[in-house]
């Protein structure tokens, strides 16, 4: 029996109860991602970083197009009423070039690595409110494109710092609708983050910059919903990496008196084989949480092996020039609560 739309309800500033159903999803990834633990769960993987394109930016566009194609097929849809998309490139290039082909009405987003959670939150609200009958969300990142834009040329012979993370070459796409049936994954809450800055200056310490933002959003959500970490099968942060994850657990103990170690997982540490693959302290990039959620978490909710997941996507909101101008790194954490309908 189809479950009907519930009205949208404001629980606290930025914490919104809603009901939107996941009609289909897909994740695509590059070679390193295919070699990771989620490899077999990708809808498509690409052996070469170029993906047959002339430049990294178009290669990332190619990733988004593939993810969208597979997700639409999984949802048995041909088009969406509304699309929320984002990536790490200047001017959201990959999203805009993808939508140049697809011609869906689109809103481009940027919250760094929190863009996927942000796109899901907005898409869920659009679907649940009746503003759109079918909403798509797609987010990507590409290791080579991100290195070019934020760090050094790919062939430059530098050494990564010990706390650095690897930007995932991956994209994830989700198709949402206002109605679904039991067995579908469902978004029940959207949470929008506040910009938090604890004074981290080193652009290589993204995990440390983002952990306080994750804590802030987690606290606001638990307070607004009167729930505890034990009410979730998983509290999933979007790429804090090993360093940021350790800091979040410490902060949660210190600030909230909560023990998260049993329930917390991090997308950056689920995408790759830690220790075996050369990825620093874990994966990062907007495509990292998109790929992990689409390849692993949504299917687990659909199969019933997970029942309630709180996704907290974290993003470091620095620009390529703001650290050079002496600015500290602001961070944000957007989230959605996912359940099985």
């Amino acid at each position: 029996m189809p479950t009907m739309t519930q009205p949208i309800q404001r629980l606290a500033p930025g914490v919104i109860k809603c009901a939107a159903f996941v009609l289909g999803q897909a994740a695509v990834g590059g070679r390193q991602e295919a070699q990771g633990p989620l490899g077999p769960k990708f809808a498509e993987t690409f052996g070469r970083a170029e993906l047959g394109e002339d430049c990294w930016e178009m290669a990332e566009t190619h990733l988004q197009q593939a993810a969208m194609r597979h997700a639409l097929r999984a949802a048995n849809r041909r088009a969406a009423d509304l699309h929320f998309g984002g990536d790490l490139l200047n001017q959201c290039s990959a999203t805009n070039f993808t939508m140049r082909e697809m011609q869906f009405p689109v809103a481009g987003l940027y919250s760094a690595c929190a863009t996927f959670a942000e796109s899901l939150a907005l898409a869920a609200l659009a679907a649940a409110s009746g503003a759109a009958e079918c909403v798509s969300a797609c987010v990507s990142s590409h290791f080579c494109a991100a290195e070019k834009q934020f760090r050094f040329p790919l062939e430059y012979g530098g050494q990564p710092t010990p706390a650095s993370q690897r930007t995932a070459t991956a994209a994830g796409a989700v198709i949402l609708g206002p109605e679904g049936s039991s067995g579908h994954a469902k978004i029940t809450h959207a949470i929008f983050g506040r910009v938090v800055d604890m004074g981290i200056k080193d652009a290589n310490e993204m995990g440390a910059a983002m952990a306080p933002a994750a804590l802030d959003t987690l606290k606001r959500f638990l307070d607004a919903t009167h729930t505890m970490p034990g009410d979730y099968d998983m509290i999933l942060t979007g790429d804090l990496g090993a360093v940021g994850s350790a800091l979040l657990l410490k902060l949660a103990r210190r600030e909230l008196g909560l023990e998260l170690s049993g329930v917390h997982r991090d997308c950056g540490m689920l995408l790759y084989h830690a220790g075996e693959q050369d990825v620093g302290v874990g994966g990062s990039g907007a495509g990292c949480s998109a790929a992990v959620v689409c390849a692993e978490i949504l299917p687990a909710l659909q199969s019933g092996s997970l029942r309630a997941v709180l996704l907290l996507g974290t993003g470091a909101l620095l620009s390529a020039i703001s650290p050079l101008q002496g600015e500290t790194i602001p961070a944000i954490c957007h989230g959605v609560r996912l359940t099985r309908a």
Partner: protein
Amino acid sequence: MQTSREDYKKMVKKATPPSAHVQHWILSFLVGGAICALGQGIRLLCEAQKVDEETIRIIVPCALVALSALLTALGLFDKIGKFAGAGSAVPITGFANSIVSSAMEHRCEGLVLGVGANMFKLAGPVLAYGTAVCTIYGLLYLIFQ
């Protein structure tokens, strides 16, 4: 947050894995030394061929730059750099790598505004301040010689 920025800074320092300094020093010493030995080898080879001193001083750096550019183009230099750190970055090889890698990265934006405008993005500071220091040194030499 109750935790102050200072306290958080301490927490971050404790949670961040330290750089493997000793390992980096040893590897950069060995690889840097090997590159210098290679340069010396080219010099000895030239001397054996009775090449004059002036020409040798041109050949040795040019050979190292060409080799570094070739390894960069083949996608091997970044792997050496990851392993060797300053060992391959500090000699003239690192300078060549920074120019060639920037040029490669921007080739799809065209030869003028892509390759031409970006190839000195990393090497530019070295050129600018290197020239400035040389000018000051030259002036001091002129005055006090």
